[in-house]
Structures are given as structure tokens and as C-alpha cells.
């Protein structure tokens, strides 16, 4: 389970996230590909998303401002219309009373029969009147027409009466008075012939006024009502009635024209308030017309739209994020892979260079050392000959041992100089057609006895379809010999050696030499082709075998790679061109 998860992660997770080839690090263009990746994504996202976010916010701001302005205007217009209706309602009735009082005069109005007739006519003309009465300047009701018997009542202490005395006319607040039913009193003052004044008073039902106001109500969240200047509700409010019939929002500041403002209600919800202080031409009133709308209700269309825009915005942002992430990942990975190839090439080039210069040095050293070595060898040999052949010192094993050790040392140095010279030699490559299968068989033949003795299974699989290779026989032979030798040294008795070949396109052939021996540790894997690198004990290996092989493969215009796991074995892969291309002549 964990394994397949890891494999999935490996397939999705880009290569640069698990870069462990530290030997390539100095050759990379970007040192930290994860950081480059992160920066790329960050910059691209900022470039794409910041303008989008800013534009959206500005757009929201503009829309909201324009909606606010529009809402205020509409609220103000509504309040203005309602104000006109209420004003007209009151003015109309005041005008009717003024006309009646001027036309009829005190004497006729105090006649109860006439007063009832006037009431009937007014009811027919305007409706909404309950009763009509004439009140003397003492505040005592003189004549009354209407359903209640209120004759003789004293109104001198009523606020409306005092106001009427001052202003010639008045409109009361809505109150219940003696009868216990909400009503408005409108009254006009007139003079009697004897110079004293009297008041014609009418009681208006509030029903009509409430109906008039209700007709201006628009939408579910709108409320329209009258309050007095202390905030006491004059007509019922649907949403804003607080304690003791007071409205639960503050009384607006005085203004002589209709206004609309933004505010918040008691629960903090934004509201729009349109208001107007109502004054008639004939008498002032204490009414304030209130139009209150919940902003949320008016903004609903916009909020719905905004929610859609938000969804769209979120979805777009998500797509942008995904596309940028994927694109960046793919691009950075591509760059990483190209960079990695470049780094590998540079490492290989450096190694070639190193190998070439070491080769030249090695050849020089080998030449210089080889002649004295030969001389030492012959001289020591001669001394030994003298001892052994001339019988004189034959019995002295000590001397012989010393001389033998000199000769052994020379032989060992001789091996090194010979290999160094082979490594450095630049003989022309002489090509001839070679059957790879036969050549491998020849090389394996060298080791047949050893394999039988050590119980090593050798498996060779070279298909007949592999064509003849145009290459240098001697060099190819040595390459295969070196690699097979190498494998034989690496494996224990009873292991196996697998030699396999396959075509790599029509132009190249690939030769695999695989063993299940001790393997090469990761730290050593990069160094196996370096000259003088050996893990064998001193004196047992020269550390030149694989570097010579490497040089030979290069000379044949091929390529050699190695894969290995400690304890599991090693595979050398030699890729060779089927035909060595002639070098272009300059």
C-alpha cells in the first residue's frame, strides 16, 4: 500500500523535488530548484490575481456607492411624496374649516341644527370627520354635532386649544382624549362681531391618514409612519415600535425639506431613513413623517449578483492557481532536466579532460620509469642468476628471498606502467565488422575454467538480430574482457554473470554486463571510472581497469554507464554505435 502510494507520489511529484545528486550541484544554473519553483508560482499568481482582486474590489465599491446613492434618492422621493399627501390631507380639512367658519359666522354655527348640517356636508365632501364643535374663548364647548355628547366640556387646558389661540389654527397630535379613541383635532380660530374669538373644532378619524400612509409602502422591508418630535409614534409602525409607543430609532435632526440618511437600527442592521417635518400652510404640526427601509432588502439583488460574482471569481482564481501551478511545475521540471543534462555533460566533459591529462602524465611517468625498471629487473635477475646458477650461494635462502622480493616489486611496477601506457595510447581506431556474439563467446571462454571451478553461472543472451558492428576488434575485446574480469572479481562463488545485448534504435547497440556480486556503494559509484581509484587492498589492484575501459569506449565513440546497489550487484551498460562515424576532416 505504502509502496504504491510512494510510486504515485513519484509519478506526480516533479523530479527536482528529489534531487539528491550532489556531485552535479556546482554545475546547475539555479542552485535551489524548489525555491525557483516557489518563486515562479508566487510571482505568476501575484501578477494574475492581484489586478483581478483589486479590480473586483473597486467594482464592488463603485456598485455599492451607486446603489447607496440610488437608494437614498428613492427613499427621499418616497418620503417627499408621502409628505405631500399627509400635508394635503391636513391642509384640505383645515381649509374646509376656515371656509366654514368664515362663511357661516359664530351665530349660525352655534345653532345645533345648522352645525349638524355642516358636519353632514363635510362628511360628504371629505369623509373621515367624526364630530364638529364650537368652543368659546373661555375654552368651554358651546355647540356640538356628532355621536358623543360632549357639550359643556372645558378645553381651555388642552394644548391644541392654546396653540389655536396663538396661531389662528392648529393640528393636534394624535391622542385618545375623553372618548378613548385615537383621533386628531383640527381647529380654526375666528372673531365674533363683539370682538371675542371662538374656535371651530373638528375631530378626524386616524383611519384615513393611516390608509393614505400605507398606500406609499413599497416592498416588505419598508415601514412608513408618523411620530411627534419626541419620537412618540403617531401611527403604527411595523418594525420600529419600542417601549411606550416610542420608535426605537433616534429622532432625526430638524430640516425644512425632505431628507434621506443612512443609519443603523437597534440590532445594528443598516437602514435608510427618509424623513420630513410636516407643516401645513395654515398651521404648524408636530408630525414627522418617517420612511424606514432595511438596506439589506434593497441590496438583495446586488448581494445575489455579488454572490454569483464571488463564486465566479473564486472558480476563476482556482483555475488560475491550478494552471499556474501545473504549468510552472512542468516548465521548471523541463528546465531542471535540461540543466541536469547540461550538468551531467559538464561532469562527463570534466572527467574526460581529467582522464586525458592524467593519461598524458601517466604515459610520461610510465616511459620514464619503465627503462630503469627493466634495468633493475635484469640486474637483480643477474645477481639471482649468479647465486643460483654458479652454485656458490645457492644455499643462502635469505639472499634469494631479498632478490625475489625486488623482482616481484619490479613485476608489480611493470604491470602498472604497462597499464598506464595502454591507457594513454592514442592508436588509430581500425575498424572491421565484428560479430558481437562470437566476441563475447571468445571472452567468456577465457573464464570458462574459472567459472566451472567457482560454480559461477554465466548466461549469455545476444540475439541473432544484432547486426555486425563496425568497430575496433582489439579495443572492444579489451572492453569486454575488462568488464567480465571486473565482474568475476566482484562475485562470490555460486553467483551469476549475465551478458545481454539489445538494439537501441537502428544506430546503436547496448551491451549489459550484470552480476549479482557485492555491488558498489553510492559514494564510490561516481568515482569508479577515475584512474587509480580502487577499493581493493594495496597491491591487489591498480585502479586503472575501469578508467582504461572508459577511455576505450570513448575511443569507439560509445558510452559506458554503471548502476549498482550494495549487496545486490552491478550492471555496466556499454552503448556502441553500429558504425563508427568517420571524423570530419578539417
Amino acid at each position, binding site marked *: 500500500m505504502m509502496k504504491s502510494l510512494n510510486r504515485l507520489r513519484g509519478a506526480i511529484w516533479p523530479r527536482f523535488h528529489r534531487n539528491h545528486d550532489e556531485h552535479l550541484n556546482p554545475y546547475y544554473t539555479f542552485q535551489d530548484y524548489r525555491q525557483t519553483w516557489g518563486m515562479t508560482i508566487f510571482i505568476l499568481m501575484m501578477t494574475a490575481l492581484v489586478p483581478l482582486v483589486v479590480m473586483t474590489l473597486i467594482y464592488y465599491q463603485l456598485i455599492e456607492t451607486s446603489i447607496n446613492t440610488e437608494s437614498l434618492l428613492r427613499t427621499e422621493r418616497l418620503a417627499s411624496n408621502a409628505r405631500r399627501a399627509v400635508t394635503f390631507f391636513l391642509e384640505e380639512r383645515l381649509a374646509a374649516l376656515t371656509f366654514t367658519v368664515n362663511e357661516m359666522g359664530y351665530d349660525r354655527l352655534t345653532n345645533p341644527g345648522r352645525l349638524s348640517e355642516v358636519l353632514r356636508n363635510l362628511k360628504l365632501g371629505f369623509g373621515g370627520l367624526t364630530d364638529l364643535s364650537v368652543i368659546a374663548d373661555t375654552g368651554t364647548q358651546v355647540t356640538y354635532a356628532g355621536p358623543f355628547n360632549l357639550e359643556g366640556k372645558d378645553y381651555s387646558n388642552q394644548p391644541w386649544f392654546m396653540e389655536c389661540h396663538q396661531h389662528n389654527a392648529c393640528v393636534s397630535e394624535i391622542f385618545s382624549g375623553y372618548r378613548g379613541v385615537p383621533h386628531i383635532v383640527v381647529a380654526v380660530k375666528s372673531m365674533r362681531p363683539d370682538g371675542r374669538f371662538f374656535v371651530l373644532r373638528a375631530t378626524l378619524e386616524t383611519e384615513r391618514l393611516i390608509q393614505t400612509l400605507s398606500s406609499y409602502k413599497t416592498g416588505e422591508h419598508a415601514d412608513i409612519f408618523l411620530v411627534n418630535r419626541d419620537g412618540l409614534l403617531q401611527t403604527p409602525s411595523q418594525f420600529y415600535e419600542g417601549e411606550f409607543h416610542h420608535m426605537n430609532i433616534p429622532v432625526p435632526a430638524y430640516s425644512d425639506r425632505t431628507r434621506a440618511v443612512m443609519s443603523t437600527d437597534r440590532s445594528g442592521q443598516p437602514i435608510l431613513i427618509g424623513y420630513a417635518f410636516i407643516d401645513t400652510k395654515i398651521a404648524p404640526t408636530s408630525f414627522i413623517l418617517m420612511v424606514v427601509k432595511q438596506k439589506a432588502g434593497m441590496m438583495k439583488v446586488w448581494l445575489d449578483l455579488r454572490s454569483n460574482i464571488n463564486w465566479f471569481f473564486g472558480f476563476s482564481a482556482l483555475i488560475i492557481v491550478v494552471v499556474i501551478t501545473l504549468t510552472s511545475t512542468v516548465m521548471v521540471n523541463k528546465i531542471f532536466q535540461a540543466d541536469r543534462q547540461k550538468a551531467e555533460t559538464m561532469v562527463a566533459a570534466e572527467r574526460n579532460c581529467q582522464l586525458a591529462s592524467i593519461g598524458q602524465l601517466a604515459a610520461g611517468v610510465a*616511459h620514464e620509469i*619503465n*627503462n630503469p*625498471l*627493466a*634495468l*633493475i*629487473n*635484469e*640486474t637483480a*635477475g*643477474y645477481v639471482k*642468476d*649468479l647465486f643460483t*646458477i*654458479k652454485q656458490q650461494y645457492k644455499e643462502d635462502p635469505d639472499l634469494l628471498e631479498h632478490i625475489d622480493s625486488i623482482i616481484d616489486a*619490479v*613485476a608489480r*611496477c*611493470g604491470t602498472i606502467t*604497462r*597499464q598506464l*601506457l*595502454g591507457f594513454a*595510447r592514442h*592508436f588509430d581506431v*581500425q575498424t572491421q565488422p565484428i560479430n558481437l556474439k562470437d566476441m563475447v563467446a571468445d571472452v567468456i571462454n577465457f573464464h570458462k575454467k574459472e567459472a566451472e571451478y567457482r560454480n559461477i553461472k554465466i548466461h549469455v543472451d545476444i540475439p541473432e538480430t544484432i547486426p555486425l558492428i563496425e568497430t575496433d*576488434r*582489439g579495443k572492444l*575485446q*579489451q572492453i569486454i574482457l575488462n568488464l567480465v574480469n571486473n565482474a568475476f572479481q566482484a562475485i562470490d562463488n555460486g553467483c551469476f554473470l549475465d551478458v545481454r545485448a539489445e538494439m537501441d534504435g537502428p544506430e546503436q547497440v547496448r551491451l549489459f554486463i550484470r552480476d549479482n556480486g557485492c555491488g558498489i556503494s553510492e559514494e564510490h559509484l561516481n568515482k569508479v571510472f577515475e584512474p587509480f581509484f580502487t577499493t581493493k587492498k594495496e597491491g591487489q589492484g591498480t585502479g586503472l581497469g575501469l578508467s582504461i575501459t572508459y577511455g576505450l569506449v570513448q575511443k569507439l565513440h560509445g558510452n559506458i554507464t554503471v548502476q549498482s546497489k550494495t549487496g545486490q550487484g552491478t550492471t555496466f551498460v556499454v552503448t556502441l554505435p553500429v558504425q563508427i562515424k568517420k571524423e570530419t576532416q578539417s
Partner: protein
Amino acid sequence: MKVLLVDDEQKFALMLAKRLALREIQTEVFFSGEKALETVQQGNRFDVAILDVKMPGIGGIELKRRLGLLDPAMKFVFLTGHGSKMDYTAGVQEAENYLPKPLQIEELMETLNRLTEGPTAAADLDG
């Protein structure tokens, strides 16, 4: 057995000649190809010539060609200080008669014995 030894490394050649002499092989030493040619031209006969491949003047390979013309029965052993046998396989017939320096005297003796035994008679018959 009479051997002609040609090598420009004088000390080496003399020392090798001494060792061969100890093994009862009559050896004449020359330090250049020209001197060796002269001797053979004067009518001196040798069974085997041991030649260094790289010498100033006439090199081993060229010397072998010229000596072969003068005495077709002569056998040749090459000495080389420049690498192993395998590198010389291309282009040279007698690959088995190449011996790298430093020498193993036993190897040289074996080669000399092999050359002067069986094949000599056959070569004579062919000639």
C-alpha cells in the same frame, strides 16, 4: 643457440646478455640497428634476434624486415617498453613473440626454446 640482441638501452642489453650467457646461450649485443645489420651482412649467422621495438635510427620492426631478407631462417623476438602484447596485435604477424619490459627471464627462455625447436625444421623445409 646463437642470439643477436639489439637494444639502445646499453646497460639493460649487457645485463640481459650476461644472464643469457649464464644459461649457456651465446649472445652478441649491439646498441643500434645499423651495427647489427653490419654484422649479419658480414656473414655472421644467428638463430634468433631479440630486438627492441623502439630504437633511434632503424627500429625493431624495420630491422626485422631487413634481417629477414638477409637470413630468411632467422627467428625474431621483440622487446617493448610500451605496453602489453594486446596493443600490438593489429598489424604485426608474430604477436606471440612480443615480450614487455621488464622481462621475465623464464618467459624469454621459453620463447627462445620454442622458436629454435620444432618450427625451425619446418621453416628450413619450406625455405
